[in-house]
């Protein structure tokens, strides 16, 4: 077997990013859309850590911590918006929330 290189990690990260993008674009349930965004952010983190490991530079991991911070803030605010939306419209379907469409 070949030893694992940075390219393996980058390929895995790209696959994870694409799966997350499919989830964001196609799912109707907003909760699952938010979960797909978490997948995308994890793909970014995987990339950062792979390069941090490859270059022997700690800055990539520090950046990954900032990305995780953003993910936490995004999840908290997104789920708060979702609860407010559900209280007013009784739906969690992304395509049923079309108040601004004409």
């Amino acid at each position, binding site marked *: *077997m*070949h030893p*694992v*290189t*940075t*390219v*393996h*990690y980058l*390929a*895995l990260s*790209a*696959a*994870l990013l*694409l*799966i*997350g*993008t*499919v*989830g964001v*674009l*196609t*799912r*109707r349930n907003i*909760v*699952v859309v*938010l*979960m797909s965004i*978490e*997948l995308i952010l*994890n793909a970014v983190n*995987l990339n950062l*850590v792979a390069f*941090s*490991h*490859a*270059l*022997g*530079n*700690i*800055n990539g*991991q*520090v950046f*990954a*911590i*900032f990305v*995780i*911070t953003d*993910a*936490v*803030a995004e*999840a*908290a*605010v997104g*789920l*708060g*918006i*979702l*609860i407010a939306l559900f209280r007013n419209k009784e739906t*969690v379907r992304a*395509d049923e929330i079309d108040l601004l469409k004409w």
Partner: protein
Amino acid sequence: MDTILFYAFAALVLVGAVLTITCKNAVHSAIALICSLLGVAGLYLLQQAEFLFAVQIILYVGGIMLLFLFVIMLVNLDREDKERQFSRSWMVALTAVVVVGAELGYFLYRGRGAFHIAEGGGPVAAAVGNTEMIADSLFSEYLLPFEIASLLLLVAVVGAVVMAKKRI
């Protein structure tokens, strides 16, 4: 050994991710996402990022996923499982993503020779521990971004409470 572990964790990550976006039930999606996040944590450990490994498990699996499960319990209706799960334009989305994936794969394949730096494994795990190095960097070089991140978290907490509360 590392190679076997890498492929095991990669399989865990990818299977979890695919199940996350295909499961009908949102709770099942959340559990699949937990599997995927644990796989990512294992990959961090494989790359000697021990601190991020701990942060990933405590924060993502312990914190964010708990929040998700709470909201699923609050919000889900019984009719959800029987309905159409994907939006009408899923074909367009899938085609676009496949095109982007082909591009990324082509670039990685063409540029794989540029990653010769990857062989050494890097001197990250030196005499100083991983957590100590991150702390040194975070509290000296990245002090201002660190403080801004704490401000961001404060805003997020206040925002989440304002959104979710019925009457303020």
